């Protein structure tokens, strides 16, 4: 045996133990709370546990129409403010990617003044496309259209993410795909029709007054009481049901006409709730998003501070004036789908249908981000984006269970066939091959846990196929050894030559397969991706087990027989 045999052998033992420990929670179905150091398990893909996968498309044509209509309203408003009598004209859609809206100036003498005012007020947002007497046509600029496209996607993702908690999904996946598509994957969701309905509807925006007379300590005390009674929010359950249950529990304690709501800060990358601030708010909303016209980010030129501007419809404007007038000094919670997003102080009575949410001073960029987020949430309720279902795949839970049973059985049969053949054909060397193949499967499974990849149906199939293909490495080596033996050189030398010649062949063969695997990974979504991951993991595992592990075992074998015997 070569001097470093023990090191290589120990590396193998280490890898095997590590892999075995990694896959143990999956195989023996350990509980989350068990004392075992490794918690992660192989999660099952949508096709195995059931669930919903969707690609939603955004219809930008409709978004542009809504945008330009909104600006026409603002232009008319701003002109009237300025003393130029004007009203909204009509929508003209000759090019659906660039719809136009007109503003009619009532007094022809004001025309130039109006044009100047619009130019000053909406620079780089809209452009004049046509002038028909006193009717001025405006379209969105390219810059703003690009911005709208970007915002629509982020906005929609925000809204959808907000609702995902409702489905009791543990690992939702919501991502932008390309410029105008959103992928939503909800593994394990049971009520598929409801999930679709909820994602499709528009956000519910509400304004409620915060009751700050109750000290935070008191609120905390209530929450402790709830917790003591055994009610706790568990990951994977419906958040809103939990909030309802909390309020139900505290019915006797809470002041009349108030309820508890939470401000949630969600980490955008991990999608996890990082902070929950409980507040006591009106049980009935004072104002809803239906009354909001628009929201946006503006910058206070004097203080150089960003703020959020709100614009209400006429009824909303009146209500807002009343609410703010009656609650100066209190906080107003802006809630979306039942969660508080922000709760600014009401500084004064606000009339005229326009309000501002100031964020105070601080780092400009972080304030800007905050302002944008709030505007996004507000607009999500007021300005729904038309999402259409471009692709939808749903799998019922029973199908997944059937598939697991069938495919696993087939995979076992398939592997068994390979094992039996190898042992029959190569005798003791075949047994070594089976050991390497088993190690291969173990490493693939451990790799899946380590990468937090999901196991899909084609993935299970991929493991079986990998075994079928990994055998290639063994066969290359064994056939080469046989060839060398036939040349009449000793077993010892034959084994060494066999391994030396086979290395590059095995590597080349696997690298080319890896190229195909990478293309598959790029192409595939969902189940197919799962297959690609298994295939790629399989390639790495194959190179190690088929060449290096085989080598370790053969060296040991040759050492035992002292090069006198070789069953191959």
């Amino acid at each position, binding site marked *: 045996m070569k001097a470093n045999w023990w090191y290589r052998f120990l590396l193998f033992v280490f890898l095997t133990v590590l892999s075995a420990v990694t896959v143990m929670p999956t195989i023996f179905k350990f509980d989350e709370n068990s004392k075992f150091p490794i918690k992660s398990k192989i999660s099952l893909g949508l*096709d195995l546990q059931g669930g919903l996968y969707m*690609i939603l*498309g955004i219809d930008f044509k409709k978004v542009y129409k809504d945008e330009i209509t909104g600006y026409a309203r603002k232009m008319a408003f701003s002109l009237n403010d300025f003393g130029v009598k004007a009203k909204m004209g009509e929508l003209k859609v000759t090019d659906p990617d660039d719809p136009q809206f007109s503003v009619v100036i009532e007094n022809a003498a004001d025309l130039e003044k109006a044009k100047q005012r619009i130019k000053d007020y909406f620079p780089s947002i809209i452009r004049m496309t046509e002038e028909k007497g006193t009717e001025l046509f405006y379209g969105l600029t390219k810059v703003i259209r690009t911005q709208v496209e970007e915002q629509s996607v982020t906005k929609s993702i925000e809204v959808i993410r907000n609702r995902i908690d409702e489905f009791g999904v543990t690992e939702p996946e919501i991502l932008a795909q390309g410029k105008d598509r959103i992928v939503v994957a909800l593994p394990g969701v049971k009520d598929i*029709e409801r999930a679709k309905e909820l994602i499709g509807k528009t956000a519910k925006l509400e304004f409620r007054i915060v009751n700050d007379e109750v000290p935070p300590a008191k609120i905390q005390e209530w929450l402790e009481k709830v917790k003591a009674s055994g009610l706790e929010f568990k990951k994977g359950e419906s958040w809103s049901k939990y909030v309802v249950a909390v309020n139900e529990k505290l019915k006797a304690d809470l002041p009349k006409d108030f309820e508890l709501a939470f401000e949630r800060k969600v980490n955008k990358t991990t999608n996890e709730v990082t902070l929950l601030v409980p507040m006591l708010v009106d049980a009935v909303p004072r104002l809803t998003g239906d009354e909001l016209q628009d929201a946006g980010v503006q910058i206070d030129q004097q203080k150089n501070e960003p703020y959020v501007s709100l614009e209400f419809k006429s009824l909303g404007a009146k209500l807002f004036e009343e609410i703010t007038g009656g609650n100066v000094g209190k906080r107003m919670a802006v809630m979306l789908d039942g969660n508080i997003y922000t709760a600014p102080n009401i500084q004064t009575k606000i009339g005229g249908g326009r309000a501002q949410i100031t964020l105070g001073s601080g780092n400009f960029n972080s304030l800007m981000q905050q302002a944008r987020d709030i505007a996004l949430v507000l607009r999500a309720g007021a300005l729904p984006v038309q999402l*259409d*279902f*471009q*692709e*939808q*795949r*749903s799998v*019922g839970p029973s*199908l997944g269970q059937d*598939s697991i049973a*069938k*495919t696993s059985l*087939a995979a076992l*049969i*398939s*592997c068994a*066939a*390979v094992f039996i*053949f190898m042992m029959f*054909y*190569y005798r003791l060397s075949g047994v070594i091959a089976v050991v390497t193949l088993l190690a291969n499967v173990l490493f693939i499974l451990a790799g899946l846990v380590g990468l937090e990849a999901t196991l899909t*149906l*084609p993935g299970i*199939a991929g493991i*079986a*196929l990998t*075994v*079928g*293909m990994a*055998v*290639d490495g063994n*066969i*290359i080596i064994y*056939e080469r050894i*046989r060839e060398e033996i036939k040349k009449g050189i000793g077993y010892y030398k034959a084994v060494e030559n066999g391994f030396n010649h086979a290395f*590059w*062949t095995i590597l*080349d*063969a696997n*690298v*080319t*397969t*890896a*190229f*195909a*695997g*990478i*293309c*598959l990974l*790029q*192409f*595939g979504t969902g189940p*197919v991706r799962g*297959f*690609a991951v298994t*295939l790629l993991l399989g390639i790495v595992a194959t190179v190690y087990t088929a060449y290096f592990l085989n080598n370790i075992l053969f060296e040991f074998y040759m050492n035992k027989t002292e090069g006198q015997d070789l069953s191959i």
Partner: protein
Amino acid sequence: MFELIKNKTKIDFVGLFPITSTLSTLAVLASIILIFTSLKYGVDFSGGAEIQVKFDKSVNVADLRSTVSAAGIESASIQSIGDVSENEYLLRIPAKEENLNELQAMLVKALTSKFSDSGVQIRKVDLVGPKAGSQLRLSGFLALAWALISITIYVGLRFHFKFAPGAVLSLFHDVSIICGIYAIFGIEFTLQTVAALLTIIGYSINDTVIVYDRVRENQEMYPGNDLKTHINNATNETLSRTILTSGVTFISSLAMLFFGGVAIQDFFLAVSIGIVTGSYSTIYVATPITLILDRWSERKLATQNAGLAK
């Protein structure tokens, strides 16, 4: 030692090239025509909706059909899948229908209410809009193209660019023949088929690489022999390995095809065909093309030399 192939074979593979290359060319041409004329695309690529429904008790197909018609979908097709005793059906709404989404929802509702006594389960719904369908077609095609390109470059760099066209054409041969067979038997071309084709591309190249490896090794050892002899020797020397490996993988693929159930049938059917064409194409497509290129470059060199001699 138990051997499938005893002693060293001495088959003159190169001698068979004229016949096999004619056959291969014809098969590939026929396949390409079939792909463009009669390949049936599944819902993933053609768009449309597919509903897989299973009943606890057996149901009358006529009842099923009338329910579908009553839901206002005349163009839907109904197909029984798996064993008849499993009472499992696949309903398809073609892409030409507008409002696929509503139609599909209506159909699901109609099925669940009408067959509630028969224990209806909606097992799977796949709905692909026309936009998504064309998107998937494009990305599927691109993935195949990229796989071919990257493998060509790798083979070119690792061996010699003389070897690359043979390798890539043999892969093209495999892919088109699988599609051709799909077209002849009216088997649907789905996302899984694309995944299988990519797998086959990755797998089939192994054989080719192994023969090339041996050719290169022999070239170093016996520089006196011409490429034709090298190819014949290398193919013969690696023949038992080629047959064994392909055989073993074929067995495991067949096991998956027969026992794995409907969900992965598509995939393993293509893989099984691909393993067979892959072994064939290594011997009869990849190497002949390398040989032709070699002769062509030699002739070119010879004429150049002749030109210089003048």
